[in-house]
């Protein structure tokens, strides 16, 4: 999840700490700086791929550092920030919304860390006005954490707490409610107003919300440890109210061609980053241990050096092999993520960076029907010679627009079109006799189900009229068929019986017409 550090640079932030007895004089701003550095230090170790932006605000809101993975840019920028006038939170949130929507759109979840001085700068009426004016919930999914740089007993903090709580609550009620549940943000108050207190609060935040996600990718006996980035969020199913959390073992169950797979409906996508095998002391080739076939090394006896072993990029990793094979073959792997939950693994490369390719996990909605064109996902299985099932991809579903409609007569033009079709066939007898009766039966069936007997009478009248306007050259069969069809539509015994179907008049009269 990209992160916005929303830093208060109002004048009140530069107040010195009340009881700074040490030689160093700290202001609330320097404490905020310490907190941000702690945060960036944590990311360097645990989430190097996170994008972070620094936005400062007072009565104006300014993007100091746009989204970047170069955390040093932020560190360098911090001491150069200029102080502003007063704290104006709703302006700040407007600015953040704009920044996020421009950069990430509304489908990417974003975390916002609001670092302020624990005073909203207005009285209770003003505070309530701010609460009403908050541009929340945002149109993108996300959460806001608040880190007030204030002593926990500060009265102005007590006063501002309802505002902070409201911000945290509102931020999670995103209108864009997808299947992913995003845990709420929180308020992290430092225990004491000093550097260790602030750092402790920030560390708590990091540990709760910036955990990296590790798991084992298994393909039969081959396995490797991987990191998923961004860390997957628990998913939920609105009907069942159950939440699904990704298990720490992802099992490949088999493979599909990209073409068969289509575009899976992903609720989230994650990079799969291989990690060095811990303690991969590869056994020598003579003693292959069949139980650990993956823990082998490219090094062979004689050329094996310590250098080879210590460089993880030279130790074969299943993840790299899988990526290469998926890419070459144009295939994807189906992965079981948990009970009733599946995902797909594909080689993916950005259009703009065609050469840099990586392994991407698409997490599907938890349900066996998450990709309907693959059939029920729990029934994906290997081909077996004795299998009777001959189903192939894609498994097609029938929808109203798939064809064979004729029930949508709510709009008059469709009804007209269907009636005109019947009359067109009626004018082209005897060639279209079969078509005429087919259409008539279709029309009848629809009319019966809608209780629309008036239509049948009308069509019957129309057919009789066609009969009277037949040109004199028309074969007598035409008149006979039209009269027969018109009568059948009015027959009180059969016209409204759906099981009955109209049949063309038996065609032996052609002989009589010839003998004339």
């Amino acid at each position: 999840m990209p992160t916005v550090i929303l830093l208060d640079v109002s004048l009140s932030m530069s107040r010195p700490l009340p009881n700074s007895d040490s030689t160093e004089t700290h202001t609330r701003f320097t404490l905020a700086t310490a907190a941000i550095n702690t945060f960036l230090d944590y990311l360097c170790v645990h989430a190097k791929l996170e994008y972070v932006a620094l936005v400062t605000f007072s009565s104006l809101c300014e993007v100091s550092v746009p989204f970047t993975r170069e955390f040093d840019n932020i560190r360098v920028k911090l001491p150069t920030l200029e102080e502003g006038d007063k704290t104006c939170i709703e302006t700040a949130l407007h600015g953040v919304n704009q920044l996020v929507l421009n950069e990430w759109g509304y489908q990417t979840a974003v975390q916002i860390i609001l670092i302020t001085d624990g005073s909203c700068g207005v009285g209770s009426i003003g505070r309530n006005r701010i609460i009403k004016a908050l541009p929340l919930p945002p149109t993108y999914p996300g959460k806001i954490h608040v880190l007030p740089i204030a002593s926990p007993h500060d009265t102005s903090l007590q006063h501002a707490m309802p505002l902070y709580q409201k911000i945290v609550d509102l931020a999670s009620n995103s209108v864009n409610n997808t299947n992913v549940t995003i845990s709420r943000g929180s308020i992290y108050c430092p225990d004491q107003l000093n550097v260790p207190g602030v750092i402790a609060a920030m560390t708590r935040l990091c540990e709760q919300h910036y955990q990296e996600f590790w798991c084992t990718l298994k393909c039969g006996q081959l396995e490797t440890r991987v990191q998923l980035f961004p860390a997957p969020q628990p998913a939920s199913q609105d009907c069942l109210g159950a939440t699904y959390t990704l298990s720490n073992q992802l099992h490949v169950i088999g493979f599909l061609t990209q073409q068969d797979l289509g575009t899976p409906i992903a609720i989230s996508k994650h990079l799969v980053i291989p990690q060095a095998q811990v303690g991969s002391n590869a056994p020598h080739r003579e003693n292959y241990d069949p139980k650990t076939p993956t823990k082998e090394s490219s090094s062979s006896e004689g050329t094996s050096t310590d250098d080879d072993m210590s460089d993880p990029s030279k130790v074969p990793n299943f993840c790299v092999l899988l990526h290469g094979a998926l890419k070459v073959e144009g295939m994807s792997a189906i992965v079981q993520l948990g009970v009733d939950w599946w995902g797909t693994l594909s080689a993916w490369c950005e259009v703009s960076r065609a050469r840099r390719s990586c392994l991407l996990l698409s997490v599907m909605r938890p349900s066996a029907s998450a990709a309907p064109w693959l059939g029920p996902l729990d029934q994906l299985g290997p081909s077996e010679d004795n299998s009777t099932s001959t189903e192939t991809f894609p498994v097609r579903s029938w929808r109203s627009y798939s064809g064979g409609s004729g029930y949508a007569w709510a709009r008059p033009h469709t009804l007209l079109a269907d009636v005109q079709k019947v009359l067109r066939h009626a004018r082209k007898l005897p060639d279209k006799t079969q078509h005429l009766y087919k259409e008539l039966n279709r029309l009848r069936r629809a009319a019966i189900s809608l209780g629309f007997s008036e239509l049948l009478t009308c069509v019957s009248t129309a057919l009789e009229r066609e009969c009277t306007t037949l040109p004199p050259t028309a074969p007598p069969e035409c008149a006979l068929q039209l009269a027969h069809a018109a009568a059948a539509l009015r027959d009180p015994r059969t016209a409204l019986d759906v099981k009955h179907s109209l049949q063309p008049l038996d065609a032996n009269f052609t002989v009589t017409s010839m003998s004339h």
Partner: protein
Amino acid sequence: MFPTNHKTVFVLDHTPYFGISSENPIDFDVAKSRGPGYVPLPAVCKSLWTCSVEAAVEYCRIVWDLFPEGKLVRFVVSDFAAHILNTWAISQQNFTHLLNGLCLVGPVRRGAGGDVVGLCAAIEALGEPTGVQAARPPDSLFQNRGRILCITSARDDDSIRSLIDIAVNTLVQQNQKASEPQPTPVDGNNTQTLAIHYCHLIVINVTPEKTDSRVTNQPLTEMAGGLMGVEVIVCRASLLAGLLGRLVLPHYRLAITTVTGIPMKEEQNATSSANYDVEIIHSAEAHAGLRAAQTAAEATESVVLRWWTPRGAEGGAGGCHGPLWRVTPADAASRPSACLVNFLLNGRSVTLELPSKKGGGRSASHVLAAQGGELWIGALGGRSPHDDPPALSEGAGGRVTDYRIKEFGALMHQNKLYPGRGAGANTRARARLQRHTTYWPLTISSTLIFNMGSVMEPLTRLVVQESLTDEEVEQCRAVLMSLLAMEARHDLPAPHLPAAARGKSSGRREEQWRQVWSEAEALVRAHAVTPAHRALLRALQVTRTHNNGDGDSRATVIKATTDSPLSPVSGGSDVWAPRSALDALLGAPRPHRRPDFAGRMAAGNRPATLYSHLQNDEQH
């Protein structure tokens, strides 16, 4: 947890009043006049019943098109009795079932009856658990909510009020009954009546075109302590379909997109094309990004997106980072809709863009595509948090250049998945993968047997099978035999090894052969679960022990096997006599072996003594 739109019940009034005409004539003589003497057709009016059925069916079409599961609709037809057309069962949630039921109901007949029985039956239906609800453990708490759309016609507000009162009373009574202890289900399926926690009742009062109604609209009011929300809507029969078409949007959080400027060729005028608009319905979530700049009023209108004529092959829905939503045309039967639907169902996809802004720039916003015979929309735009990934070549295993990619590709093809393989198919697929990867070196340089090409191929291919026939075991033995022969000829096991790999494993030939044998054994041992596999392993071990035991003369194995003092008298009649490795491979396969008498195995070539342990016992 279960939203109100999980369960919807339509109550259709089938009383004699609904047989009257809607007084909205449809003229079939739209075509140009066909000369004098042409008798015009009388215009046709639908009955109120036809209007309400087709409107309800259209509502249902949209729901079932967009939510094939999880959103259930039931129909109750009410005259002198309540005719329940379908249940919550998935098998009855489709058009065919519904229309068959409607056919059986037939047109309105004379006779008494009213809408009340149907309404009561509908409330009862809401109390019945759906499949998903029944599947939940009985002690779990969930909200059972639902919606009733009652299409009827009342004289005045008072009749409507008494109808609603009856509904509220029925609901309260039924909840009372549901709260009483019920007999525990026998079959473990939780089919007992559920309490209804909320019921959204919409009474739609239908009138013919020219009749004045003394019923007035009533906005949503909560009744019975929030148990029931009641709405009354008055509607002309001819506008009923439009009304339900609008109601379905908020009920299921749907939105309409107008795809504008779709070029279509005319049959008459094939050289030029005219532009058409098509309205499509889908989840409102698909508009989330567009809504950012919209007011609440605009949000209820359709969003207009422009057709971006595809240039060549489009990427399909692949460019969407987020989810896809199902789409259905608002007017399924219209020609432009059918045209767009066919375009998509034929496998093409199209990008939609925001109507051009002042800046003149184009911004793609959505993609329409079909998958598996269904239409989908996905939103484009925005970066993804996983962009600019770290290069795999810098990560773990990234510098290794000799992965067995081609072989893994073959393995993937052998482990392709197919749909509809029945229960437990996933488990079978995983078991198969497990077998295929039991012994699977990742790199070319870490293996010799997989680099030996056709010599080794039958063995590596066959051994991963779940079971081996005798014939296949023989094929594998033949492989071992040819290996022996190769070794005897002083051949290198894998002369075609790529230079890089050969450089690493350029050990002595003997060492290479030792590796080949140990790899082969590891491979076969890893699969030794069936008797046939174990037989193969034994054959391999016999070969190996002989090979290794012979020390210096390993290379001259043929000579050794024939000249060894340990080798038995050749051509002996004893089929069970110990055989050399080569004999074991060359000779006729032995009959299925019974475990040999232990005494004989101990005695070797000497006569075996019976009951030898008796002597031992005496000594102790």
